[in-house]
């Protein structure tokens, strides 16, 4: 990448959502004139979007039961009593 470390740092800050308004403007202006940084930023944005689109899996239904069956035995007196 031909661009300065500063611009790379701004891209990271932007993606970490830790960029100030002034810095965001600076980055915006820069990517308008720098195709390398523009591409880099777009690719990273796309990467993040794809990873965020990963499905969420649920635990197997019987997992709680399985774990409960493996807990050390408890004495009756300690059970819920309300």
């Amino acid at each position: 990448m031909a661009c300065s470390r500063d611009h790379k740092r701004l891209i990271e800050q932007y993606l970490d959502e830790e960029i100030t308004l002034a810095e965001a403007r600076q980055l915006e202006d820069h990517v308008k004139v720098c195709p390398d940084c523009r591409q880099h930023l777009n690719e990273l944005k796309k990467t993040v979007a794809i990873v965020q689109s990963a499905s969420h899996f649920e635990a197997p239904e019987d997992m709680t039961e399985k774990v409960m069956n493996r807990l050390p035995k408890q004495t009756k007196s300690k059970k819920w009593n309300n």
Partner: protein
Amino acid sequence: MDTVVKKIVREVKRGNQEAFAELMELYKDKVFHIAFRMLGNSHEAQDVAQEAFLRAYTNIHSYDESRKFSTWIFRIATNLAIDRLRKKKPDFHLEDKVGGTENLDHYSRFASGEELPEDQVVKLEMQAWIQQEIMQLPPKYRSAIILKYLEDLSLKEISEVLNLPVATVKTRIHRGREALRKRLRES
């Protein structure tokens, strides 16, 4: 929510096992999901998730109630997943193509028997691809990326789960993100 969790935790600390089942119901999906994304395999993910809850139960007295329960249980689960990855070192490597592919079975379960429309196929392929790429990341970047982008934790929370300074977490996310970007480019 937090006060409810606190109340349940106190019950568990008093020795009430049934309360622990409630606690599990609240967190089992997330714990399983983190383990699944770390290991790329639902069988192992189940093992790790169950083990994490068993350890949480046994060590419930060491849980500090001023912190989020989720942070604590995620930490136990992440550590167990990383231990497991370490133990199976030879078949797990950056270049290893096999590691993440078991989830293909997982996905194809939904697809059994019937013809899928094209866009469904594309979706499944994309999902399989994501997991495969996550599995290509070294575990230390993988855990940071999972917690950040799949569990949507803040950098501060991730630093607590992984027991690392925020600056280190950031570096790991940056490197993980960059590695994924490069692979996306090549594919």
